[in-house]
């Protein structure tokens, strides 16, 4: 099989063209780097405490600050309307499809992971990369309090 274009969507290209068509002439400058930091996993998954980070919010009113909330019972709904996702092709009524707390709890029961952290974290999505990194530090501190040793980040 052959084709003349790549299969995977480039969201950088799509959003640049989309906002240009809306009359925004200066394209957004996305974060870029050539190397990544790395902390090896020094103990097995079955002994690790997994903490989840989502970009969804507990309510539309609380979408502007990072937060932590109990992992269990998992919320049965989250606020996502303010985020950019494919609202024409899918839906977010199934929380497990983007915030897998119940799934992780089941994997802990099965011994695949050590445990699910007692709290999950949420981080707002903003254009400012400086604010994002500042909020990431709040989450680092919360996860350190909870002895999280593997963070699972799940963007919408």
């Amino acid at each position, binding site marked *: 099989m052959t084709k003349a274009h790549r299969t995977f969507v480039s969201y950088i290209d799509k959003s640049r063209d989309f906002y240009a068509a809306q009359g925004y002439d200066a394209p957004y400058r996305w974060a870029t780097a050539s190397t990544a*930091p790395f902390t090896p996993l020094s103990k097995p998954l079955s002994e690790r405490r997994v903490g989840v980070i989502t970009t969804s919010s507990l309510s539309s009113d609380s979408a502007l600050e990072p937060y932590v909330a109990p992992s269990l019972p998992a919320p049965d709904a989250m606020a996502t309307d303010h985020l950019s996702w494919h609202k024409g092709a899918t839906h977010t009524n199934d929380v497990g499809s983007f915030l897998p707390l119940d799934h992780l709890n*089941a994997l802990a029961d099965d011994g695949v992971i050590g445990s699910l952290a007692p709290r999950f974290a949420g981080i707002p999505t903003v254009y400012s990369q400086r604010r994002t990194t500042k909020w990431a530090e709040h989450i680092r501190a919360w996860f350190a309090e909870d002895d999280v040793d593997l963070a699972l*980040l799940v963007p919408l």
Partner: protein
Amino acid sequence: MCHQTVGLTARHLEANGIPTVILGSARDILDEIAVPRFAFTDLPLGNPVGPADDPAQQRDILTSTLRFAEAAPLPQSSVVLPVVWSGTPDWRETYMSLDDPEALRAAGDARRASQQARKQ
């Protein structure tokens, strides 16, 4: 913007001693940021763990993501996870479609007017 947000967050956590893995569906944004570990699901944005209302597939994808994280040997490790999508086949074309330029221009004008009104 969700993917950039978690990419920057993962880099911050990882630099401060907490290992991370991202499970997401926008690979170009995360490739540009350079993240420690990334499992890619080629699905419409909104359900990175797996298609909505398919808990069995979600759990398989999640398990694969965690196994990948455990085995990833180097920073910027990534994996393309197998997914079964049975929804609309043209989802790649319909997201942020440019098919109606007049409507897009009008939407941009309305947004700018709203932003200007808030400043005054």
